[in-house]
């Protein structure tokens, strides 16, 4: 399947992807209206080191431990391989947050449910907005073996 990959060699640590992610999932069409004066809760997070920066979001593992761990059946893997979350089913136990080895699942803004990257198929963008706006092609969306 096509997945989001990050090449730390080209990641500049500008954090633009976090804002593009928050905008994509805001449901609004104007970034200023969506993000001005708000604390953002993006599903992608840039880890900053001294010289290395790395954007992290869900890897859509082929054997996703989060899905196994979910006590409410909110997390599932579709036939296309995308690991999705049904927030109506999520009970907010945050077990998935604890078990994800990449730290790619986090509590949503209200803290009562978990949230994770669904490759922007769950919003109007249709394809990953972080990839589209990455300044340096550090985040790519492609098929790899």
């Amino acid at each position, binding site marked *: 399947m096509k997945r989001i990959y990050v090449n730390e060699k080209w990641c500049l640590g500008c954090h*633009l992807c976090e804002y593009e992610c928050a905008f994509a999932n805001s449901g609004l069409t104007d970034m200023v209206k969506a*993000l001005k004066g708000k604390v953002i809760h993006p599903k992608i997070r840039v880890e900053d080191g001294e010289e290395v920066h790395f954007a992290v979001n869900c890897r859509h593992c082929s054997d996703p431990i989060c899905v196994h761990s979910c006590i409410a059946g909110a997390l599932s893997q579709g036939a296309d391989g995308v690991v999705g979350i049904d927030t109506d089913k999520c009970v907010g136990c945050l077990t998935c947050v604890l078990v994800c080895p990449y730290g790619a699942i986090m509590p949503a803004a209200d803290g009562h449910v978990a949230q994770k990257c669904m490759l922007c198929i769950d919003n109007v963008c249709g394809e990953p907005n972080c990839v589209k706006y990455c300044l340096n*092609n550090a985040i790519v969306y492609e098929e790899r073996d």
Partner: protein
Amino acid sequence: MNIYIQPEYEVVRDRDRCIGCRVCERQCANLVHSYDAEAGKMQADSALCVNCHRCVCVCPTHALKIVKSDDTYKVNGNWGNQTINEVYRQANSGGVLLSSMGNPKEYPVFWDKMLINASQVTNPPIDPLREPMETRLWLGKRTSVIERDERGKLKNKLSPQLELKVPILFSAMSYGSISYNAHESLARAAQELGTFYNTGEGGLHKDFYKYGKNTIVQVASGRFGVYKDYLDTAAAIEIKMGQGAKPGIGGHLPGEKISADVSETRMIPQGVDAISPAPHHDIYSIEDLRQLVYSLKEATDYKKPVIVKIAAVHNCAAIASGIARSGADILAIDGYRGGTGAAPTRIRDNVGIPIELALAQVDQRLREEGIRDEVSILAGGSIRSSADVIKAIALGADACYIGTAALLALGCHLCRTCHTGKCNWGIATQRPDLVKRLNPDIGYKRLVNLVTAWNHEIQEMMGGMGINSIEALRGNRLMLRGIGLTDTELSVLGIKYAGESM
């Protein structure tokens, strides 16, 4: 006491649009932007801004713009703001003023005073989408007389030639003055386009030997990085006698830019200033030049063309005549608007002549002396568009070097502060965190796009003139007409005025 100088440009932030994402702050190596956590607002210090537009381009809500300050001294037709500020800066520091990139002064641009011909009725134009339109060409020494043996076979042996698919090459920019990623972008683009890039005088990084077939290596007065493999790898060797941006002076790469990698490539100690002398200390005459030309040919088995590059100066036609007789295969002329990573401001802005005039005079002189076929001519020094390429070729060039246009394609915004080494676009810098901003996967494609687009336009204009081979346009000055030029300018350019018939 230093006199305060008001910044020339101001950063203007649209507070209604700024979402405080701090991307501008993270992307500015000059530390212009900062976040005031107490007020929850972004701030900008315009005094630090070099107007490179990085922040303007990366701002996701387009909340930023840079404007020219309307602060002014009492208006004076003779003493402009910049002139006065430069006096203050020199009185403050006692130093020579440094600048980068090409001469920005408002001298006449002769490209913009020449118009191109088109066919009507009697010699119909050609549609390049339907008929062959050849932009392939060869650079090197030609034979003016064709000799055949008794069986009619050619007796002439052609000197080594460079084959180009497009009449455009990337001009000399050294590793040191520009980054590793900029060099990789140029090398990969040259390979894909079937043309050449030029190492400049900084040697060839070991990773780029694989692009040798598309590489012109330079031998300059500092002789940095010159050794056997360097010469053997290249497709051609260029002897740099001068540079359009700073004719008559050498180069100076400050020690801070001599990183471990640059040091290895240039074969000089790390952290020590790299000085290129003004003259080659072994060249004081055409005879001396001939010796270096033949030394380089001898060292490479007479398999590679040798280019001699000079700056366009007052007496360049006579100098070119000497070079054509020195054994060189190709002559490169660099006009006074050509770029540089650093040059004394006064030299950049006041020394040399326009490439248009130099090129026309050199081509004319070599024709008059019957030695035009001894060398191919490369013109550079502010070729800004495909129209400039067409005009240069019609004035007598075989092909054109582009430098500034190539850097623009890579993201350069002509802020002209390369000499500070803090290029926000990852081009004119050696700082690893800045160099990585130029991803060669993106950069080389943008270069390929640019040259491909220009080549399409060149084919369209050639078709319009009824010419189907770029070599048939060379020196075809009847395809040009002057507009707004004096009689002297017309005669130097060797063209007629618009409206005058053949």
